[in-house]
């Protein structure tokens, strides 16, 4: 009897706590959504409860239609979107190609110095990316390579080679080697073995890497703010709330952020299972 009472109290407390946490999680997001649909330009105008008299689409209109220059081919937001998309697509192909080839080499081929190269890759993974950033910036400026999204993508690609190499290598090592061996007995070259036999089997990890590579440049601020003069999604958003008085447009920011955050969140949820795999496999699995 007493045990039952304690259980009941604990159950109520646990639910109360969880409801409290749920509201803490949801309130800022609901506020953000509400702000995106509020009339005017000031945060003060955002109501705490939904208020239809303050409802407006104007911030979405700003996002999709506003451009600072007259006669621009598209709105600033879409131009920024296209720039970011360029980085994402170039990075996606770069990362997949490099990770598959390098991962395959380290998983399957035997050669001198392999262990040292692997160790080098491991050490490279530790290099904080910002350390090279200043140097890359000076070098890019020197060779007039700034303000080019495709060239910026190379930095993203190179930086993620070591980590993704380990992912592909780890995945490939779980595929029995007898497959390659029988292929090479049948006269296949290493390249044929990779493309015809192994590639179909590693599609899951390639998908994981590809999604990761495609997602990386969205809302990554530091590199893009320095290497590109024209705004990307990240710098465009940042300038809306960090800019000076006339550039400070918090409600337009909410609308722009909402548009970009929703697809990213959907992908994140979809990839949830695999993300955790990726995060832990880097440290634990072989």
């Amino acid at each position, binding site marked *: 009897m007493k045990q039952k009472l304690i259980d009941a109290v604990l159950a109520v407390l646990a639910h109360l706590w969880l409801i409290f946490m749920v509201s803490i999680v949801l309130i800022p997001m609901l506020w953000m959504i509400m702000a995106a649909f509020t009339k005017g330009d000031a945060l003060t105008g955002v109501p705490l409860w939904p208020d239809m008299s303050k409802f407006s689409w104007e911030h979405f209109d700003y996002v999709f239609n506003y451009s600072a220059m007259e006669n621009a081919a598209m709105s600033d937001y879409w131009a920024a979107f296209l720039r970011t998309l360029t980085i994402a697509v170039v990075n996606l192909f770069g990362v997949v190609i490099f990770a598959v*080839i390098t991962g395959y080499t380290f998983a399957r081929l035997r050669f001198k110095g392999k262990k040292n190269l692997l160790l080098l890759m491991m050490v490279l993974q530790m290099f904080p990316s*910002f*350390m090279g950033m*200043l140097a890359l910036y000076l070098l890019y400026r020197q060779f007039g390579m700034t303000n080019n999204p495709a060239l910026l993508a190379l930095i993203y*690609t190179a930086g993620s080679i070591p980590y993704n190499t380990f992912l592909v290598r780890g995945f490939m090592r779980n595929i029995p080697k007898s497959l390659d061996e029988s292929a090479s007995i049948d006269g296949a070259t290493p390249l044929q073995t990779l493309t015809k036999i192994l590639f179909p089997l590693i599609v899951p990890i390639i998908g994981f890497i590809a999604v990761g590579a495609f997602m990386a440049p969205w809302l990554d601020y530091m590199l893009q703010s320095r290497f590109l003069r024209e705004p990307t999604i990240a710098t465009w958003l940042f300038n809306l709330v960090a800019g000076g008085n006339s550039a400070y447009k918090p409600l337009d920011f909410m609308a722009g952020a909402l548009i970009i955050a929703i697809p990213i969140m959907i992908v*994140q949820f979809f990839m*949830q299972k695999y993300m955790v795999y990726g995060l832990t496999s880097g440290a634990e699995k072989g």
Partner: protein
Amino acid sequence: MKKKPFLSRIKAFFQDLKNNPDALTSAILSGVLMGLGQLRNKQKSKAGLFFGVFLLIVVVELLTGGYIYAFDEMSRYPALPTDTFTQINFLRDYGGLFVKGIWGLITLGQIPIMVTYRGNVTVTYNKVLTWLSADNSMTLLGNGLIALVLVSIVIAIWVFNIRDAYVTRKHQKHGEPVESGKQYFKRIWNEMFPYVILIPTLIMVLFFILIPFLFSFLLAFTNYTYRNNNLSNIVKWVGFENFTKIIVEPGWAGIFGNVVLWTVLFAISASVTCYILGMIQALIIESKYVKFKKFFRTILIVPWAVPSMVSLMVFRQAFQQDGLINKVLFQTNTMDDMVRFLTSIGLMGAPETIISWLTVFANANLTKAVIIMVNLWMGAPYFMMLITGVLTTLPKDLYEAASIDGANKWQSFSRITLPLILRATLPAIVMTFTFNFNNFGAIYFMTGGGPAIPTDLVPQSMLVTKGVPGATDILISWIYKLSFTADSQVFNMAAVYSILIFVFIGAISVFNLSRAKTLWEDD
């Protein structure tokens, strides 16, 4: 296999040299000129290959340098006694990729813009008389590093070439079977395949990771700041001056100490709070008392899925004076209580009618607390997910055995559950700590490093640069300021701090690395 001690290996090496004077001759010949030893060993194709490499280097050096113009120009443009630089610097004026590269790396340039040199005034860039272009230290440093890498590769090939000449001759002398050139090439071709397909990767890694890293590393030993951002001041090597500066000079040392203290405090508290809350959430949701587990789990994971830049900047808005938080406090009539509470626990410097969460220096501690809370909102779901995963893998029989032995719930939690969770999540904790140590976004997007420190509290020696850290700047966001504040970049100090971070993070990573041996060990 146990390796012999170093000294006896050296001894054996010299003994071997003594015993094979003929092979040594071949080796020395190869040392004088690549491929010469192979020629003596009667391996023509191999000799040709090595000599080809040598020739390639010489041709590249000659073509990239101005050697062919040197003779003509030296007489036409002599150095005059009235010039600023009265000597002709041959290496600078006519050196090619390798020679000028190494020269630049050593000197970082000597001749600035708008001075007289060889009877002319130096300019930014002269296409015909390239030596009239003023030295750009950063270009020289970059080219020098590339040259250094190439030279190291050449030296490696050369050493290989010498060793090959020696070993082949030795085998020939002793009548052991020696590979013919043809066999050799066939074997090399097959063995080379892995290296050939790694070449693109290595180039990427070399040019986008290693060389930039070395470049930043070397900047720490120069005097490169906004003052010599133009060509009129040549950058100089200054040794360890910058490193002593951050410890010895009171201005830099004091500020640096504050920033490091806050960085460490932030990294620790941000990681620990996220971990603890994540664990509590996981334990509560997975406990038998909770219904709708899936619903709660799904909602509570949401912050993890929101891009962190968006959540941080939304919170930045929510904590504005007219943002969500203050509004809620007003609506619920708790603003005065909140102000009194925050002042009494010392987070607010002085009572105000409306709370400035992020922008007032007197409330710096409050701002720091807000940053940690927001980080908690974003970071706890990850650990909740991770620990929920661990909880499902816990062995049931352990608990049964424990309860048979008479352990109560607390004991079975603290003796079984907790240690198992900790062990499984330790790498993730360490990774989170290193991540937070460099969590640029959490600071930069929330506060931009602010509130700014009032100028009378900033040491005089720091005021020369606008890159003064704000009250909530951590090392990395300060480095960003030092590197990129317009017209007041202090690149060399930024590089010094980068190195310090690298050493610190590197040490932690090595610890993690030694745990994850399977990753880089071969089967």
